[in-house]
């Protein structure tokens, strides 16, 4: 009998980068949409800002259902003269999101959020 092809995957990790907020102009506290990342074992979220912006506080959150959220991971501060921050997450279960606080109608910001996943 002819052996069928070996379906085993190559010994190589999967990785994927998603854009959770694409150059969004914010003027209030902002949260990215609920995102499922359960297939990955590590997540690194990047927050970039285009143009002038106030000091921003960036936190990551986890959730059992994508509806109810609890903070997880170290808060990051993006100072007025900064343009990029990173927020690493491990042991996050399935749902993750990122919250940006500090933008106001007087001092808005334009944000670009990536999540880089690996597992």
């Amino acid at each position, binding site marked *: 009998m*002819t052996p*069928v*092809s070996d379906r085993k*995957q190559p010994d190589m990790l*999967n990785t*994927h980068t*998603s*854009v*959770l907020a*694409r*150059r*969004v102009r914010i003027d209030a506290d902002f949260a990215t*949409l*609920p*995102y*499922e*990342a*359960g*297939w990955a074992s590590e997540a690194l979220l990047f927050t970039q800002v285009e143009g002038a912006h106030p000091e921003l506080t960036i936190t990551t959150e986890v959730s059992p*259902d*994508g*509806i109810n959220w609890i903070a997880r991971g170290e808060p990051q501060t993006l100072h007025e003269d900064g343009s990029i921050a990173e927020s690493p997450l491990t042991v996050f279960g*399935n*749902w993750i999101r990122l919250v940006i606080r500090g933008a106001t109608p007087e001092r808005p910001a334009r944000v670009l959020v990536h999540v880089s996943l690996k597992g």
Partner: protein
Amino acid sequence: MKRIVAVDGQLERFKPLRHIISFDDFDRGFNGWMDLTPNFVYDDYESFDSVVDLTSWAPSMLSSAPMRFAASHGSMAGTYSLKLTTAPTAAPHTEPPADGSMGVVVKRLSRFDDPDKIQIETWYSYTPEQDRVGLGEEDIRAFGFYFDIQDSEYRYMPGVRYVNSLGGELVKRWQYWKVADGVTPEQWSFGVDDAWCQPGIDNLWYGRRYEDGSADGYQWMPGGEQDLLYNESPDKINWLYMRLTVDVARREYVEFQSMDKVIDLRGIQPTLAPRYRSIDNLINLIFYVETDTDRSVHLFLDSVLYSTE
């Protein structure tokens, strides 16, 4: 040389044409499916002028279909499906789509061996987020699929759209992609002069929409009424089958199958637009989902098969 063909057991639930070009099981990753974005090629990496913000669609993800009170649904074969989602926001269905109110994924391919027919098949499901009480079915406006095709003469987009609900009222009818006669480019792009998109290109967000669900870019499919299986709660999803076959030699629809229903579409031609620069032989596959209200809705793709002959 002896040719050995190992048939994937999963193909038993598909009806592929002679040549399988891609079979995407999302337990093995994204398989080249990605969020659709416009061309960031102008000053400051901005895109072309558009009334609809084409940068705003919600990000897709690999989903285990977890639910609020139920357990994870998993996928039809395995754990993961590709989930398209939306932001919890919508414009009235008679207006252009609101920022974030759609989810759109694309797989970018090209013509191979000059086939006469091409076909897409998928097993899929749909549900809203269970963020409020109730059935939820009436909050899912629509979902659809289309091919983006360019040959040596025309660019055209044959596709289908299931109009599930409009303004909270269930409709449950299929449409196909074709532009009504007499629509001008300015009407098509909601008033933008010299718009990038011509009538027949990107029907999913361009073209005027009307109260009864008819639209410049969509025509009701003959016999397209179908009470698709939604189930009885947002946390229960059933896997459904869909297939669209297109004749790219004659540039016309061939057949559409949804679950147990098969509709003959021969003789119907999608709208032919002039060629665009540098995309001859392009064949893109695109799925999308639309919310009808301030609620995220999801389209889960268990697997997708693209074949030709």
